């Protein structure tokens, strides 16, 4: 069957694969024919994702990407890849006046330093094939809009989107493309994990702010990743793609 979006024959590294968007990217990539290398902090949940992958030839490598030596270990064990999907990320709502260097380091460390250093190490160790594609899960936040208490999260995602553009430019010579997807609220546990950041009632209220009248689901984002990872997008690099049900229109 003709499918220019297929990942058949490609090896894709997926971070943050133990849950949420990363898990969905891993599963969908495997369904699209890719061999997937999945990584995440939680070994049990990573194993769970591993069990959900279709096809064969997949690898799981547990790693905490906020730790540089673990990044280096991951890259050593990682086979050569045709694509990288960065999804590891945390969210925390803290007003500006309560920011501390610890929480700042935690959020920017996980959301920005981790993916940036992983990209650097993969490039340095020549683990990304030419004509490869790198996709970051950035955010609407920090690139298109923000919300109250989101300044650190926005800073970390703004950093990712800025880095992606710089990397897109420098890596173009090797034929490696770099793009961001910028989701708004996706129904994942990222909100639950951090201690009920948003209540169910608040969530229902929020939906009314979305012209398409729903929140995102993980496949909304993973299919955008796959579009950018596939050969259907070989002339697209350095872009941010909002995935937001029309949120930023208003």
């Amino acid at each position, binding site marked *: 069957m003709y499918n220019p979006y297929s990942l058949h024959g490609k090896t894709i590294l997926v971070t943050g694969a133990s849950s949420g968007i990363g898990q969905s990217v891993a599963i969908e990539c495997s369904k699209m024919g890719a061999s997937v290398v999945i990584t995440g902090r939680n070994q049990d949940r990573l194993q769970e994702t591993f069990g959900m992958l279709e096809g064969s030839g997949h690898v799981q490598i547990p790693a905490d990407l906020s730790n540089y030596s673990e990044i280096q270990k991951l890259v050593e064990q990682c086979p050569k890849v045709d694509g990288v999907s960065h999804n590891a990320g945390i969210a925390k709502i803290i007003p500006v006046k309560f920011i501390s260097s610890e929480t700042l380091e935690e959020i920017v460390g996980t959301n920005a330093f981790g993916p940036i250093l992983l990209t650097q190490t993969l490039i340095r160790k020549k683990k990304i094939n030419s004509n490869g594609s790198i996709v970051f899960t950035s955010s609407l936040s920090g690139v298109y809009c923000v919300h109250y208490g989101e300044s650190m999260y926005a800073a970390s995602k703004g950093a990712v989107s800025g880095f992606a553009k710089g990397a897109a430019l420098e890596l173009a010579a090797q034929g490696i493309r770099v793009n961001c997807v910028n989701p708004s609220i996706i129904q994942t546990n990222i909100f639950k994990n951090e201690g009920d950041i948003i209540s169910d009632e608040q969530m229902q209220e929020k939906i009314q702010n979305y012209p398409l009248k729903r929140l995102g689901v993980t496949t909304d984002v993973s299919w955008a990743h796959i*579009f950018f990872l596939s050969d259907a997008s070989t002339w697209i690099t350095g872009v941010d793609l909002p995935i937001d049900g029309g949120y930023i229109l208003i």
Partner: protein
Amino acid sequence: MYNPYSLEGKTILVAGASSGIGRELAIECSKLGALVHIIGRNSDKLSETISLMNEGKHEFHVCDITNDEELDMLVDKLPVLDGFANCVGVAKVMLMKFLNKKALNEIIETNAVAPISLMQKLVRKKKFSKKSSVVFTSSLSGVYTVHYGDALNATSKGAINAFAKSAALDLAAQGIRVNCVNPGVVATDAAFSGTSLTKEEMEAKQQYFPLKRFGQPKDIALAIIYLLSDASTWITGVNMPIDGGYTLL
């Protein structure tokens, strides 16, 4: 075979399918399983497009979409659609100080007013199924960049781009999504005949693109299909630059 980008079971309308991006899009839509209706001015070119498509009950409609009566007749004939992509567009290089109303009318009419009218009539006559998707071929020009002598093109593309966002908002309640693709220089016959640059100058121009090439119609067609497909049901009102990294610098 699993494919969330498939157009199987969908009816897609492609305007401007006699050549370039529109022709390529019609072909790719047919390969991905869609039933395709195509519009263009030249019946020979349209039947050539049909002959290049995967077999199916595709239909072509000869129509000058700048003519309101022809447009009404066309819309009446069309079936209910799941997607519409506008690829109608002309380009003209003219320095600002030489602009005139005639040229301005001509470009804005073809690139903005006509596609907007077509869209309006399709909505008005209820030609969209629930969960339809519409994609306008906008441009880098007028939205992200401009070039010398680009005022006509930039103005018309800025207009269609702005319209798409408004339509995205107005139609969201019906589940209809509206997005734009914003290509850089795409190697089509129209792009190359409309330029005053020499072949050598065009070669040199490719070096301004970090990925070191111009776009191919297929680069644009496959992005449009992503936006037409059910893989993008939470995306509306966006611009997608497709430019080999051009706007990075």
